[in-house]
C-alpha cells in the first residue's frame, strides 16, 4: 500500500510505511493552475512514482516525495 497525502506526517505518525507527499490538501494528485496537459503529466508522475515505491523495500514509515529520486 502506498498513501499519497498532502499532510504526510500524520500518515507517518500512525504507522503508514510508504508515504508519498501529495501536491496540496485541496488537490492531492493534481494542480489547478496548470493546463490540462501539464496537469495530466503531473498526475502521471504521481502514479509512476507510486508504482515505483510499491516496488521498494522499506524498514518502517518512510516519507517520499515526487522528485527526491530515492
Amino acid at each position, binding site marked *: *500500500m*502506498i*498513501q*499519497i*497525502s*498532502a*499532510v504526510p506526517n500524520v*500518515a507517518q*505518525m*500512525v*504507522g*503508514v*510505511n*510508504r508515504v508519498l507527499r*501529495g501536491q496540496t*490538501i*485541496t*488537490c*492531492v*494528485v*493534481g494542480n*489547478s493552475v496548470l493546463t490540462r496537459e501539464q496537469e*495530466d503529466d503531473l*498526475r*502521471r508522475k*504521481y*502514479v*509512476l512514482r*507510486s*508504482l515505483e515505491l*510499491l*516496488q*521498494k*523495500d*522499506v*524498514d*518502517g514509515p518512510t516519507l517520499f516525495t515526487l522528485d527526491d529520486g530515492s
Partner: protein
Amino acid sequence: MTQKKLRVVHYLNQFFGQIGGEDKADVGFSVQEGPVGPGMALKNALGDQAEIVATVICGDNYYSKDLDNTSKEGLELVKKYEPDLFFAGPAFHAGRYGVACGSMCKNVGENLGIPVITGMFEENPGVNMYQKYAYIIKTGNSARGMVEAVNKMVKLGLKLTSGELNEHLVLDEVRPRPEEYDYFSRIIIRNEYTKQITAERCLDLLLAKIKGEPFESDVVMPVFERIEPPAAIPDLSKIEVALVSDGGLVPKGNPDGFSGRGNLRWTTYEIEDFLPEDYSKVDYEIVHTGYFPVEVLENPNRLVPVEAIREQVSQGKVGKLHPTFFSTSGNATVSRGCAEMGVEIAAELKNRGIDAVILTST
C-alpha cells in the same frame, strides 16, 4: 449516630479464593459471604468504615475465555449484594488475573456506578487494557506486597466514597490525583485552577524538557503500533491495484449517508459507473467538510487518479486496475474508528485478491 457502613464486594481468582492452583483455573464463578484469603487484609484496612459482604471467586481460565459473557455473569453476582465499593485482586503480575480484575471493574463500574479499584504491576497487560475504566493501584510484581497494595486500594476507596470534592478542579468532582494515591493514570482530562498562567506553565515545561529535567505532560500522546512493512512487489505487470480514498468523494446526494465530520462509514463504487471517462462534475459531492472541494469537483481524478492508472494498465506497466473504488471520509474521525474501517476495507480487498492499494488523502 453511627455512619452507615459501606458495603464492599471483593473479586478473587481461584488461587487467592482458596479453591486451588493452576489445576483449578477452569472453575466457574462462586460466591462466599464475607472476606476470603487476602480479603482479611482488606477487612483489616477497612476497619469500621466498611464491611465485605461478599467475595466473588472465578478461575482465571474460565474468566478469560469469553470476556464479554463472563463479565456479565460476574456482574449479576455482584449486583445482588448492592455494594457501595468494589475491589478486585490485587493481581500483581498475573496476566489472566489482571485482565479478569480489570474486566470485572469495568463492568461493575459502568453498570453500578460505584468506585471500582484493583491493583497491578506495571507490566500486567490488564493495565493498558483497563486503566481508563478502573482505578488500578501500582503494585510490585509479587504477592509479597499484598498488605501494602491492599492498604493503598483501601485508602483510595475510602477517599472516593467520602464525597470530598477536589477543590483544584473547575468541575465539582471527587477526582484524586494519580500521584497522590499511586494509581495508573486513567487518562482523563480535567480543567483545573493553577497558580501560574498557561504561558508560564508551558515555558517551565519546555525549559525542563530542554535541560533534561523531569517534567510531566498534561496530555499524553497516543502510541500507535508498528505495522510490519509489506514486501516490495517484484512485478507490477502481474498485479491488480485498487484505489481507496478518504477524501469523501461520493455521488451527488451522498446516498450512503457519510458524515461530514467523524464519519464511520465506507462503501464501494463501481468505477465504470462512478467515474467514467466522460464524467460530469455535477454528479459528485465531497462530503468531507475539512477541505475546500472545488478543485476535486472540477476533476475527481485529482483525488482518485483513475485515468492516470488506466493509462499505465493499457501500457502494460500494471496488470489491472480493480473495477471498484473504495470510498470513505476521514475528517475528525477518532483514530480507533479509522482503524476499524481500515481493517474492514483491508479484509474486503484481501477477499477480492487485490495485490496493492493506492490510498489518496487530502
